[in-house]
């Protein structure tokens, strides 16, 4: 029970609580507050479900074939976005195959690229990390990834 803290204990706890709050940089809190801008946006969030760099099953294969290829997959309830780093470009495909528009958002800028009927797109140059992708299909479906750091 806390209510039996004596005055000294209560002050000590308060001091500790205020110290913990002061330890947090304001930009860190600001990042959290800005996330609310995404509230109620009609986009599904696609989660990172595969990363060649961290997926233990595939690491051995990647290393023996070509250690430099980085591949990522993001999956939402309705579609997947596959990404592959190829030189100075980021190549990708939307599955199931469909056309639409892809936005790559960094903290500084938004660039828009077409996605063809086969679901393919190319981002060149590779957006500065961290970045986020938002895909709007021609049928109106809207999916965004979390922030990606390559």
């Amino acid at each position: 029970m806390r209510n039996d803290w004596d005055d000294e204990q209560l002050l000590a706890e308060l001091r500790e609580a205020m110290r913990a709050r002061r330890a947090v940089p304001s930009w860190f809190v600001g990042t959290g507050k800005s996330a609310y801008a995404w509230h109620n946006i009609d986009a599904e969030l696609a989660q990172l479900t595969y990363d060649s760099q961290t997926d233990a099953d595939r690491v051995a294969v990647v290393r023996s074939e070509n250690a430099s290829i980085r591949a990522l997959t993001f999956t939402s309830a309705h579609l997947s976005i596959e990404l592959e780093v190829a030189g100075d470009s980021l190549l990708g495909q939307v599955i199931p195959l469909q056309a639409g528009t892809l936005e790559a958002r960094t903290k500084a800028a938004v660039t828009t690229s077409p996605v063809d009927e086969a679901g393919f797109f190319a981002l060149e140059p590779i957006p500065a990390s961290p970045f986020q992708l938002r895909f709007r299909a021609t049928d109106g479906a809207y999916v965004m990834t979390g922030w990606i750091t390559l």
Partner: protein
Amino acid sequence: MGLKASRPGLAGHGDPAAAALPARAAAGDQGAWDEIVERYAPMVWSICTRFPLSDRDLEDVAQNVWLQLVEQLGKPPEPAALVGWLAAATRRECRRVVTAARGPEPPGTQPDAVPVDAVPVDAVPVDAVPVDAVPVDAVPVDAGPVDAGPVADDAVLGEEIIMAERHAALRAALAELPAPCQPLIGMLVSDPPHSDAAISTALGIPAESIGPRLARCLEWMRESSALLGLAEAGANRPGGDPGA
């Protein structure tokens, strides 16, 4: 000290104002969202400091964690489970960023062998965090980085959650106090604390009245809904009031 109400052993807070925050944020109240962030950013930060992360990594983690929480608003988990969910999501994101920064490695060499995706976002049962197993009094107030073993195992996360709730309730209780109390207590808990003489000068009150005024303020504080809620939420934990 006797306790009238017995609540299920929730991880959360009994403070009704705090419990209402997620619903208000889900309904479009940015102020309520900001309060959630203010309450729990110190916990997210504290968990992150257990991992070797750069400022950019930290920002990456913060963006993903809070974005995921925005996505969860208005859905389960229950308000009381929010803090447990947030702690688990923070640990998962930290592990992901650390693993990505480390680069490809042969399988089995990672000291922290829990797969990044082992804790699915939607399925973090609050019961998986052994909140109730940690006696409140056993929580070290100044839990530094863990040097040995996993950097943030479930017991560590449980401690972070309890500490976050306690600290958030204390800060809320301070904010609830009548106006004359806030600068007085603020000066006493500042780092370093002010002397009675400095407080007397700054607040224009006789030095000999500081003690009695402080006692009165702290008494009010104990009766605040934030601290009463905290006591209620912690009542069923081992280490809580044995007489309850």
